[in-house]
């Protein structure tokens, strides 16, 4: 396997933990190719950083308006429901 082929298969290596075990070509290439090892490691860390980001807080004033709009819509959708 070449670096070029590895590049095309990167998603599989990143997304599927079993890919390296199932495909010896991936594993053999990575074992002998420091640049590809680093690229895989960098991508995993990149994804993890985004996943670990704190949720964006929604502005409180917006939440109030938001709730009022839901109530109004709910009353139309379910005219007999308690809101």
């Amino acid at each position, binding site marked *: 396997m*070449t*670096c*070029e082929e590895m*590049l*095309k298969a*990167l*998603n599989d290596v*990143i997304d599927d933990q079993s890919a390296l075990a199932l495909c010896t070509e991936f594993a053999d290439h990575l074992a002998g*190719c*420091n*640049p590809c090892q*680093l*690229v895989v*490691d*960098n*991508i995993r*860390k*990149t*994804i993890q*950083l*985004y*996943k*670990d*980001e*704190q*949720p*964006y807080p*929604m*502005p409180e004033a*917006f939440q109030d*308006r*938001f*709730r009022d*709009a*839901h*109530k109004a*819509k*709910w009353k139309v*959708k*379910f005219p*007999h*429901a*308690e*809101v």
Partner: protein
Amino acid sequence: MAVLPTTHYEASAADDYLPLLRRAQTGDFAAFESLVGQLQGRVYGVAYRILGHVQDAEDVVQQTFLSVIEHIDGFRGESAVATWVLRIATNFALKSLRKKRGLPTVSLDTVDESFADVPHPQYIAHWRESADSRLDRSELRELLDRAIAELDDKYRVVFVLRDIEEMSTEETAEALGLSISNVKVRLLRARMQLRERLTRELGDDATRVEPDHRH
């Protein structure tokens, strides 16, 4: 109003939101509000990351949950509740994006892309120890926001749905009206561009290696 695509994917066996949605379908507003409370942060996050603008993201959140109310009867559990809601949000975000860009259609360009065109990595290095703690939280967020904002729209949307919201490739393809192979190529492009950008900021120059394209 967003077009609500049908789906053929099975809902997760452990869909924590399904009981709330079922109660909401009977007119239970408290159940609906609880559902909103649990999902609004994710909806806002998806909208903000796609649009990069607070007011636009708020509009998408509003439109999404109003659309959920309108179409709540039609939810049959063919996909997970969160996936369904995020798909609606994505449709509204795409519509907003197209409006901002002055384009007429909602869907992103669906022209097939090839793995052959994916840019090769240039700056390759270990990240510094505790790279993420080197920056304070707001600096790190700024860096991540800037890097994702620099992505082309069509790559950013795929990255947000696949890697941040953990939708499957199939769900992402369906939500965006793309082929599965296109989702894979765009995801790889997004990952490679973000990797390049973040490694230039967080990489340890002493460990830099030259890409070896000979093998």
